[in-house]
């Protein structure tokens, strides 16, 4: 290898690092160490989201920079939400509920990180949900999850950064 070609190769090798140069103080990543084997029996999973005071409850069981897994139990809920940077892959586990999705979210506020909360959902569509059903909610799509009156509604979400 000539000295000249060595220089070219070295320059090419250095390019990716120059291109990915970070600002002096990047935000702290929302990351956790690599996960070891986990087994959580159903009773434990249910206990994480079970409350007797009638309030909704959620629990993140696996939490990483680009994805996390969350179990959620809801009661009646009227709060609209949209996640501008996350896909929700949802599987309904228990109870009865519905999702209202689409349309426009009027008066919502960004509670940080592109998470729009509150306001009114205008022009949304309604889909009833039962155990075993599955949903994909793309980033930015406003939606409201609620339990059917007199029921609770439990589902698991695989959240993936867009």
């Amino acid at each position, binding site marked *: 290898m000539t000295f000249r070609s060595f220089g070219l190769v070295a320059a*090419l*090798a250095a390019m*990716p*690092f120059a291109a990915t140069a970070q600002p002096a103080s990047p935000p702290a990543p929302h990351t956790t160490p*690599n*996960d070891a084997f*986990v*087994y959580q029996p159903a009773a434990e999973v249910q206990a994480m989201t079970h409350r007797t005071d009638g309030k909704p409850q959620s629990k993140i069981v696996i939490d990483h920079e680009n994805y996390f897994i969350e179990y959620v139990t809801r009661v009646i809920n009227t709060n609209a939400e949209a996640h501008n940077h996350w896909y929700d892959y949802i599987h309904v586990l228990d109870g009865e509920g519905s999702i209202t999705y*689409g349309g426009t979210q009027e008066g919502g506020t960004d509670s940080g990180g592109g998470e729009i909360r509150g306001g009114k959902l205008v022009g949304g569509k309604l889909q009833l949900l*039962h155990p075993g059903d599955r949903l994909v909610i793309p980033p930015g799509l406003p939606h409201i999850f609620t339990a059917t009156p007199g029921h609770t509604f439990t589902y698991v979400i695989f959240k993936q950064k867009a």
Partner: protein
Amino acid sequence: MRNLPIAAALLLATPALCQTPLRGTPPDGFKFMARGEIDKLTSKPEPGRVYGATFANDHENYYVEFVKRQDHGNMVEQHPHWIDQITILAGEGVLTYGGTIQNPNVAPTGEVRGGTQVGAKTQGLHPGDFVLIPAGLPHTFNAAPGKTITYVVYKARSQFQPPPIPPSHLPVLGVRLAWPPTSPFASQALLRPPPPCLRYAQKGEG
């Protein structure tokens, strides 16, 4: 500086050896699937297999898979680059995990399907249970005798383990690469997401 040409050669050689397309699909829109639809997709075993599986959202770094297994014919598996995050949906099953795999049947991608799992532990599985199988952990999913088991897997590509260097990358320019790399340049390159040709394109390799 001695290892710089080696790192450069690795980076340059990589695109040239790309043979597999990305497994990525366009971004997902809103989708609703009723339970019956999912059941239908998993109720028939795949050709040549004893279990039914369906990929629901297939992307480069993650995908969703619904699986229904029977009580026989399941093989020990090992995914060096994928993390399985599982919610049990129906039926009863037994998970055999850990230990080592003797006489493993290794695919070119590094995925193991088949062999003898020794020194493993077992765990009964019931609807509602959550299981995480880290990348590299040997495991076998079976339904309980006479039953079936259905579960949903959220697969995430492990960002923590660099891919094994394929034999096709060695040697480069007559130089056998140190593995794992000793150059800080080379190791940084490997900590980034793997280049396309090191990724898996074939379904069923997760």
